């Protein structure tokens, strides 16, 4: 297997590198006792007694950590944009809205080890000099909300949160805030409006949240996985973190494999592992089937095909292939899946979740759904086919770059990429009779029950 990480010692580097996932199999891993028994909160004690806030910012900058919520912005740089001469309070807001279709890493992290995130929040807040932090968690995950609240209560009782933490003079309050069901609230400025008790609609930028975020005060917004990576960086050093991954995409990340694979689940590895390697680890595709298309990082990242199996899954390589690393939500579909059905369903999602603030997205997603639905049912004439595909691409053009926020841009990704790779399959829906696929063959129980495949 091709190794992607570099080590000092010369021993064969590990293909998987559990750090965030490392304690998920520990007995009662979600409790303070279990987390501390595994070395948890040692980084916090060390930081508060020996490190200045700016030193932590420098460490995070030097580590090369980039945002794990989708866009990949360098985390340390984001922190350094907080104007420390601004007289307003500073805030840290953790984006735990995890709703991008396919993305399923933050929820298990917070379920199994909420204290990893809480320790990350304290270190990060200390670094940016915030005395108030929030975790905005989507409302549809009740048990995760329970575990987070219990962890915060335990952390207060242990003196990790509250006034004068461990005698350092540093104060921090942390609030767990449950959302109420809206994908758009994962967009960072919509999240801020939602956290202020409003409809979750994106804000005009500038000003950026670093200058005028929550309550018009300097605010850092980071993804759960980004913030959870901070304790390991503070504990082991920036060089340790940067020793994993590739030249420009440093560190470890969680890859989430779902769909028609033998072993769907969470795989933590250095950036730059390939889909082929990940599939090999888990025994490949389900028996008797082959890969047809996949998303590298959620439904908003353009689809890829088997020709991309050996592409390193890092920010640069996926970008060069015309897609985006996104959230590393690897949704894997085999040849039983109709790409038109898949894309239509995603577009119905974007249409439903469009916040309605701007016309290109509100109207554009509506039109795309209309045309895709008619296409799927074969309701256009065959000789109109090419024209309809061009119309779809045109409608995407009218959204991409013209929408107010990235939701609209993301909505075009499945359409344009699927038309690029599967033109003939779209047209086959117009050969009479609509969709030529049997949806029963794609189900999880098809293999077990021997449905005709």
């Amino acid at each position, binding site marked *: 297997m091709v190794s992607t990480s570099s080590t000092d010692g010369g021993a064969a580097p590990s293909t998987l590198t559990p750090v965030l996932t490392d304690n998920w199999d520990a007995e009662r891993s979600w409790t303070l006792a279990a987390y501390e028994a595994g070395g948890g909160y040692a980084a916090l004690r060390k930081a508060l007694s020996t490190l200045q806030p700016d030193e932590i910012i420098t460490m995070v900058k030097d580590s090369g950590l980039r945002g794990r919520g989708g866009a990949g912005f360098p985390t340390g740089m984001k922190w350094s944009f907080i104007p420390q001469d601004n007289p307003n309070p500073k805030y840290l807001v953790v984006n735990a809205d995890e709703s991008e279709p396919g993305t399923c890493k933050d929820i298990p992290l917070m379920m199994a080890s909420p204290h990893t995130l809480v320790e990350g929040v304290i270190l990060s807040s200390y670094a940016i000099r915030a005395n108030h932090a929030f975790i905005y968690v*989507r409302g549809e995950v009740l*048990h995760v909300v329970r575990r987070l609240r219990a962890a915060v209560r335990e952390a207060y009782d242990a003196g990790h949160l509250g006034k004068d933490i461990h005698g350092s003079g540093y104060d921090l309050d942390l609030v767990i805030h449950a959302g109420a069901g*809206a994908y758009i609230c994962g967009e960072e400025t919509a999240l801020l409006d939602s956290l202020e008790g409003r409809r979750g609609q994106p804000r005009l930028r500038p000003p950026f949240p670093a200058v005028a975020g929550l309550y018009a005060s300097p605010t850092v917004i980071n993804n759960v996985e980004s913030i959870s990576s901070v304790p390991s960086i503070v504990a082991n050093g920036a060089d340790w973190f940067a020793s994993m991954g590739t030249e420009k995409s440093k560190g470890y990340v969680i890859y989430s494999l779902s769909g028609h694979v033998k072993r769907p689940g969470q795989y933590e590895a250095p950036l730059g592992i390939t889909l082929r390697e990940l599939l090999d680890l888990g025994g490949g595709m389900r028996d008797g089937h082959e890969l047809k298309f996949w998303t590298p990082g959620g439904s908003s990242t353009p689809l890829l095909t088997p020709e991309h199996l050996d592409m390193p899954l890092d920010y640069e390589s996926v970008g060069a292939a015309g897609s985006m690393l996104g959230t590393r939500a690897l949704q894997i579909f085999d040849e039983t899946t109709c790409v038109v059905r898949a894309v239509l369903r995603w577009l119905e999602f974007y249409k439903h979740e469009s916040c309605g603030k701007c016309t290109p997205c509100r109207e554009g997603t509506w039109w795309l759904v209309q045309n895709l639905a008619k296409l799927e049912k074969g309701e256009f004439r065959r000789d109109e086919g090419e024209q309809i595909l061009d119309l779809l691409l045109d409608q995407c053009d009218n959204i991409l770059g013209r929408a107010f926020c990235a939701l609209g841009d993301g909505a075009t990704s499945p359409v344009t990429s699927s038309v690029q790779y599967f033109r003939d399959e779209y047209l086959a829906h117009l050969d009479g009779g609509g969709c030529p696929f049997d949806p029963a063959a794609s189900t999880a129980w098809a293999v077990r029950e021997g449905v005709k495949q």
Partner: protein
Amino acid sequence: MSEALDSKAIEELRQIAGRYPQARSGLLPMLHLVQSVQGRITPEGIETCAEILGISAAEVSGVATFYTMYKRRPVGDYHVGVCTNTLCAVMGGDAIFERLKDHLGVGNDEVADERAGDKATVSLEHVECNAACDFAPVVMVNWEFMDNQTPESATQLVDDLRAGTPVQSTRGPRLCTWREAERVLAGFEDGLADEGPAAGPASLVGLEIAREQGWTAPATAPGKGE
């Protein structure tokens, strides 16, 4: 049909607003509390939140209608959400949703009729990706995970719920009622955080492979990071 917001509820609504540097930030959890007491978002609930926060009822109403978890009409004691976003739909979510609609005799976002002898009511809705795609197809009940479902397991599930047979989440505690769940979302602990496993089987797949192979993250180089 719905209980009035008594003085305890109003006190708790104020308490929620008090958790934030600016009271209005409490509105979303306050609306969750209204749902837990009244079973839905009522005009009285909207007025009360508006009064506590010093904003107009129209503003509160505008927020309540924006978010899908806030319900104008009552849901069942157990609100069943079938994920029909693409990954789950393809893996069988569509078939599960069809089967449940048929089995319960309801459309989307409707409450099934309470039959003689039923101990609890069930409502059905299709939901978007619930961040559990590695457990597809996924069904949520009162926002607890019911992983790796089939049409058969899902019909058994709703039958058990209606019959009052206790049901355990695959990654959480015994299912509580929708109103009890809404209270947790409003920020009041129910003492169940320690129930259920740390992680479901799929969450642990990569870790298990790493353990088998002896793979770990690199050791900290001596002198570094100390």
